[in-house]
């Protein structure tokens, strides 16, 4: 766009603003959205691609057939039987290594995630009543995989060893019915509550998508507000100050339904198409999403009013929202975070939303407890009048010199 076109566009824009009916302003926002390919991308194909790509990344859902190195120094019937036990476990995929150094190297290169060593004389020692040791090393640099493998390998091996002990007891004359009880008098039955098969899609993908959605919402609102800066120094009068409140209102009115569509798409994709388990009413979540969007809008508005420079608004909002995923408390429990992190967490609209999301999806939360969560957004809503008040003061103070030199250069495109 040339300099002239920009000022022409600004004139048209000014006329619309002077007209200032909400409907006219809405139309103005719609036209602006339609003219900006990047904004259009942010509300159309980028969310679609992002949601599908992130889901595809985690689509395996359950860690299966993770490579595990086996070094069998005993090579007996017993060690082979234990190896078969590991093969039978769907999580582990044993790979034989002839030497320990080769297995260690494979582990260091992340080609295998765990290492099991059956020592020489395993069977011999067992028969002679000595207590041999089976060494298991799991890669805890990959915490998620490491923890899983540690427990699965132990379960598989313990199962195999129990069979051995059972045969021993049978041989010593214990009745068959009693052997099982002798071996494991206390059985335990574990239930993964609310995510029954411990599927990672159910646990990891919703917060990842919510984090992405929040970033998109932040960017779209920041860009839309930044667009107002384009016209500030082209016109002799500062059009940023005129009708600022209705303009902001028009933006919110336009973008809230657009983003609710995206949020609705995420919910439909996860809980209808992929049919992840869901206990509560999903329409409650749409309400929670609307509240979250309002909170995002109010934060971006505050940053915009304070910064009033397009690149800086984006930088600051990025710094604010980029780490939101870590603070949601899904990968790492909230109550284990230090106090400072728990405070920072409260600033992020997404952490408030995730509480409602888990509440509704997992616990089938009732409308009343959802309502009490939604009331928690009040500090965000106080920011809106505060920002508008601030805008009135700051804009009128710095109306003329307001980042004039910078904008003059940015105007060129």
């Amino acid at each position: 766009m040339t300099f002239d076109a920009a000022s022409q566009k600004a004139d048209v824009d000014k006329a619309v603003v002077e007209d200032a009916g909400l409907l006219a302003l809405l139309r103005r926002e719609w036209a602006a959205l339609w003219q900006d390919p990047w904004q259009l991308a942010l509300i159309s194909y980028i969310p679609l691609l992002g949601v599908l790509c992130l889901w595809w990344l985690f689509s395996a859902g359950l860690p299966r057939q993770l490579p595990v190195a086996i070094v069998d120094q005993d090579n007996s019937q017993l060690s082979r039987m234990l190896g078969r036990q590991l093969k039978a476990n769907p999580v582990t995929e044993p790979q034989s290594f002839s030497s320990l150094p080769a297995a260690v190297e494979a582990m260091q290169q992340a080609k295998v995630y765990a290492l099991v060593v059956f020592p020489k004389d395993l069977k011999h020692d067992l028969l002679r009543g000595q207590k041999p040791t089976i060494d298991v090393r799991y890669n805890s640099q990959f915490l998620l995989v490491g923890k899983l493998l540690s427990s699965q390998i132990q379960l598989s091996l313990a199962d195999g060893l129990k069979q051995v002990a059972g045969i021993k007891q049978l041989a010593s004359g214990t009745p068959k019915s009693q052997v099982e009880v002798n071996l494991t008098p206390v059985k335990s039955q574990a239930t993964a509550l609310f995510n029954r098969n411990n599927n990672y899609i159910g646990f990891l993908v919703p917060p990842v998508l919510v984090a992405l959605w929040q970033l998109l919402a932040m960017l779209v609102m920041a860009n839309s507000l930044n667009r107002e800066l384009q016209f500030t120094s082209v016109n002799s009068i500062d059009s940023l100050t005129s009708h600022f409140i209705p303009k902001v209102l028009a933006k919110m009115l336009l973008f809230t339904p657009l983003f609710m569509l995206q949020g609705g798409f995420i919910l439909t994709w996860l809980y209808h198409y992929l049919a992840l388990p869901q206990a509560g009413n999903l329409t409650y979540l749409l309400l929670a999403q609307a509240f979250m969007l309002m909170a995002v809008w109010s934060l971006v508005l505050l940053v915009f009013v304070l910064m009033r420079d397009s690149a800086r608004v984006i930088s600051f909002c990025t710094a604010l929202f980029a780490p939101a995923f870590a603070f949601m408390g899904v990968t790492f429990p909230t109550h284990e975070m230090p106090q400072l992190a728990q405070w920072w967490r409260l600033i992020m609209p997404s952490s408030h939303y995730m509480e409602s999301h888990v509440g509704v999806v997992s616990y089938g939360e009732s409308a009343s407890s959802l309502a009490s969560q939604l009331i928690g957004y009040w500090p965000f809503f106080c920011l809106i009048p505060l920002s508008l008040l601030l805008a009135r003061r700051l804009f009128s103070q710095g109306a003329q010199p307001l980042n004039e030199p910078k904008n003059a250069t940015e105007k060129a495109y």
Partner: protein
Amino acid sequence: MANLTAQHQASFPNSSPKSAPQSAALSLWQLVLLELSAIVRDKAIAVTLFGGVLFYSILYPLPYQHQVPTEQQLIVVDLDHSSLSRRLIRHADASAKIEVIGQVGSISEAQTFIETGKAHGLLVIPEGFRRDLMLGKGVTLSYGGDASYFLIYSAVAEGLVSAGLDAGKQVQMIGMLTQGKAAKQAQMSVNSIALNSVPAFNPSLGYTPYVVPGLFLLILHQTLLIGTGILGAGQWRQRGYWLDVSPLQLVCGRMLAFLLIYIVFTSFYIGYCYHWYQVSVQASFGLVALWLLPFLLATAAAGVAMSSLFVRRDLPTQVLLLLSMPILFVSGFVWPIALIPEPLVLASQWIPAVPAIMGMLELNQMGASWGSVLPKWLQLWALFGLFLGLAVLGVKRRAAAYVKALEQHS
């Protein structure tokens, strides 16, 4: 450890440009100075680079400061009320992973505790627990953990499995002793083979040593791309020093300027922050520096190449922000590469951060040999070559476009 200082000295061989011809060296260094002042004077870049790098080094690891989830609140439904069930509860409470916060009369009551977030797990001790055990019948303990939160569930499960196993062994021992077996023999047949399961590489099982190494390289990667992106995007449509030098010179000067800044940032992250967050360090200083050199070069070149695609200063940050999460997850330390669809893995190999993160983890966290990470190191050099070419091409196109626009205007 002893050879660290020696390697320290060896890794920076004469960095002064004395040997180069005087005039050429002067113009290159003048260019670097111009670049540096452009970076520092541009508030958006300065905030992203200096502010962002410092801010993220604190903010990202902040939630994980307490490392391992411990003492998850557990609610108990004791339907047996026997000496043995009380003993089991004490056992569970003694586990570092679990804190018993109370007992309720029914499972549905326990569920409400979990749904309101007061407890994260429940244990049900069935009626007749002690009697059945003493009669030699098997009993089943039920327990559950809130699997909406992965680490909570695994902590509850680990704590309860070990408490349950302990209780089982105790009962077995008592049973065998009453049958008249010798204590030692009884002990023997309870555990005939020992399983020694030990974590390798991150012995504390801490969350920061798990997240920080990969995450910090990604932050360096993203901020470097954003910095070069904003600088380029702001310049292409204006007359400036960038037109006074050849595209190759500009790209080299720009990379050198950012490299000078990023050597400081990288030393801060890999040096001080690793130490602060107790990340284990296995490779020597020299090897780590050698590893990071093509990473920074390839990233800087990719940044300049990418910057030639933008003329709006606020766009590079937005694009890279949206790419951050996918790059983080595809780099293979959060979610195993073995489970990521092959096309995504192949596509990600063109991003410098992906081979750099995995190689760094292998080299520095898991102690792999230089030989085994060499292919990834060469891959980084190849990416550097590729992006250098693209960067020169991109700057050339921008310069030609500017000249053309100027001619049209006049």
